[in-house]
């Protein structure tokens, strides 16, 4: 096992190391990046995109790493019934070229709205009306597809960024999950709204439905609680959490084994690492097998 260490405050250093290691590795490996806080996930995502590292989130960070999923579920909920948050989401980006500013204008007075905004608003309402008519006749799967197709949703930047391939696959997996779950439950879109609500409140439940193979070319972003003792990974990277309350500490347990612990939870997991471990500077004194990643990589 090769152990690389990076300066805890230098995420670019970590991502450069990841890019270097992943470029040399085989395609079908288990690659995991452990993040303890959503803030660190938000920080690392632009860097992963910059270095063109494909990533997919586990259950905890599903909505953080793939924000369009939450927006899509909210929009579908807005289509299903008169849930105000869903409707507010549906009548805005990324579905329609409208936002809170247009909503504020509407509140201030319809007569004061510029004609372009007024027309965009009416077009959006008309599209939603048509989508609802279709949704009440078909199943949630076709309603979801129509929602994505008939609005500008598929122009969401995620589908055209560096991670577009994974995001697109996830989109179709999400549609399949909606179709499958509604088919199993024999529910229509109105009945399916409660499932959407559950998924929005607990992304872990949805993530299980979007389960992919652990092996792949993507880097899996996992939360600490998603790790289980005895898990075998090929590449393990641990993200330093800056000054956040949840710090992950690492130590080498035995040959090929790493122990990770958090300060706030006071629990630990032992992982088996096959090839590479990338960890922050803070940690145990190192043996000869530990090397440093050269700065400015990638």
């Amino acid at each position, binding site marked *: 096992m090769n152990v690389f260490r990076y300066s805890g405050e230098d995420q670019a250093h970590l991502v450069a190391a990841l890019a270097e290691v992943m470029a040399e590795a085989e395609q079908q490996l288990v690659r995991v990046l452990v993040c303890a806080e959503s803030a660190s996930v*938000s920080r690392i995502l632009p860097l992963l995109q910059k270095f063109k590292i494909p990533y997919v989130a586990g259950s905890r960070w599903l909505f953080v790493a793939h924000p369009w999923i939450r927006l899509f579920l909210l929009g579908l909920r807005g289509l299903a019934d008169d849930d105000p948050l869903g409707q507010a989401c549906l009548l805005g980006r990324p579905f329609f070229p409208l936002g809170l*500013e247009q909503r*504020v204008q509407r509140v201030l007075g319809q007569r004061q709205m510029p004609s372009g905004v007024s027309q965009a608003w009416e077009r959006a309402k008309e599209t939603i009306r048509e989508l609802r008519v279709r949704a*009440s006749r078909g199943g949630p799967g076709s309603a979801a597809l129509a929602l994505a197709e008939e609005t500008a949703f598929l122009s969401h930047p995620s589908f055209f960024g560096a991670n577009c391939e994974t995001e697109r696959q996830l989109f179709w997996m999400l549609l399949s999950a909606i179709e499958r779950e509604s088919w199993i439950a024999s529910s229509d879109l109105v009945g399916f709204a409660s499932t959407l609500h559950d998924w929005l409140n607990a992304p872990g439940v949805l993530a299980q439905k979007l389960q992919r193979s652990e092996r792949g070319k993507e880097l899996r972003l996992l939360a600490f609680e998603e790790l289980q003792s005895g898990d075998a990974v090929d590449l393990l990277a641990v993200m330093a959490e800056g000054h956040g309350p949840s710090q992950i500490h690492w130590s080498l347990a035995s040959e090929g084994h790493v122990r990770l612990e958090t300060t706030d939870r006071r629990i630990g997991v032992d992982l088996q690492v096959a090839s590479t471990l990338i960890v922050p500077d803070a940690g145990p004194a190192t043996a000869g097998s530990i090397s440093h990643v050269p700065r400015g990589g990638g």
Partner: protein
Amino acid sequence: MTVTQCVYAAIQWLREQLETRAPKPWWVLVPKPVPYVPLLVQRIDVCIRQPLSVFIACGMPFAGSPALARLRKLNGALCRNLSAHAVAALAPYLRRGVADGGKSPSSWLPRVSPERALLLLQASGACAEPSGPHRWHERMASLLERTTKGVAAAKQSTDMSERRQTAIRRQELERLAREVRVLLPSLRDLDDLAERFARGGTRQELLEHYWRFVDRWLVMPMTPPLQESVVRLCFTSAAASKERRSESAEEFVSWLEGTLQSLVLDVPHCAAPDITIALQRPIERSGSVFRMREGSDEAHFTSSSPTGVPLPPAAATSIAFDRAVAHPWVAGQRNLRDVVERVSAGSEEAGVCFVGPPGSVRWGLEPGRPLSATALALLLTCPYRFLLERVAHVHPLQRKASTKHFEASAFGTLVHEAFAAFLKWHGAAFFARNGTLRDWLECVRALVVEHFEARLRTYPLWGETNQAEELLRLQASLERLVAAEWKQPPREFLAVEYRFGEPSGVRLRGSRTPLYVRGSIDWLDRTARGLTVGELKTVAITVAEPTRLDFRRYLQLGVYVLAIESGALGNAETVSDAAVVMVNPSDVRRWQANGRSLQQVRERTAEAVEVATVLLQSAKFPRTPAVSDCMYCPFFTYCGEAAASDAVRASLETADEELQAFYTWRGVYREGLRTRDQRWVSG
């Protein structure tokens, strides 16, 4: 070729595929789901004696369409004697009133969600039965009548000081009336159907009534021929059965469920099926999400190969009041419809929402649009939530009310109303300490009963036991409150629920930029030292530890103090004392400030007002920098988990002076107020 011949031809073909071990899945295309799919699936089981998994891609005749689920909801409502939850689950599928368009396409639209339907049903008030009311038309008609009267009264109101409240109330009532009115006709027939079922009858008789209701009121996603065939099969099954005696609703529904189930194919889901049954042509224009035409846009979109060389960057336009922002992301190859523009992620994702150029939001900055004291506290807690709730009018769905006890907000309102009524009628005598405490406790007990019964007209507290328990809890709170106030020295009572700043806001004195406020002071009295402002708060479980007073609480009090000193009572008057009284059924605590501590409240409130004014003037609405504020926020699903942490990061990194002022203020006063000369008095 008859249907049966077609089906057996397909079976024969499947046998050949099995013998020749042809690659799976074997596709069987059918012209329409009924009756081909049920016949085919049943015959596969019988004729091919090998376990084969089937996937039905064209939708099931019954289970695949939502029709059976809707019938089951109706059955559930009939079985459960029209309980509120069962009727609420059925309500989205009930057609709107005949006068509202009948069976036109718009009548297909679900206008009400089950949650909202439950709220409407619950708005019809309390019921002596533990499980709540079971007939709805009369109750909802009565609610509609009350609502209509309320709207009329609100329209006739000429009281300028209550104009704003009246307008809000009228809008609420009009919405309620609009929603209830269209449900009434179907509820009337549903009540009749339930009454008929309660009397029992033969299967034929009950089926007549059942299908008549379904045909008239239930939106069924079935074609008329399919529905006719289902009805015919039900009647045939009833005629064939030997049962001729009168049946109860439960027995009938149980039999009907079984009969409908026999029309349903219960095919387990399988990821890799042996046989796939599909339609010859797709029902939906988009097609099933599992099947994509070769070369279609969807197929291209899902292909695992890279989407090719991206197009040159396209400027996407975000519409703002008078500015266009170019977002330089790369547009891909997907062809978008002309109906919508390519849209941007906008600045909302960066943690701060701008709703236009500075000065575009006038709330609080004009006398005609004063800011309420509670809105000010909300603005300084999370400006983004303030924007959603108070400016953009995005309101999260109200939670379902508990039918066993009062929600915290309803309980708090009742305590406020009852105490305000007590002070209105007896404030002068009570504050002068006339009479005895025993008499006042008796008096407040009677007042509580009066208000409690009035509240039951609109609150769904179901069951006499629950009602009695809640009445005791309410009485206990008010008695403790009155007893605690009795311990205070005698004083002169001045006003209760004193409203100021309506319709024209009070300009707060001393602030560099004018901020206009309005509010309602719980009570005002005068001691030997001078004027006292009183604020009542109900606390959910335990009264807070007497260490710090949260900034939201002292801010509201501070605004009242500054408003009075700026002339809210007609002329500027100095306040000598301010008190927050926190009450719950088991304890009362009083936080009182005077002298130096009151001066501290004034100074801190003035600082807060400055920060709020800057935010409003610059029309910038950042998310709260404290993740803990999001914990119970109803907009958490809307904003997402990352929003909170991004806002924290933004608060550390921003170079914007206006935002920095807000973040600094939150950082300094996050922990609330705590000095030596503030007094906590236990009740």
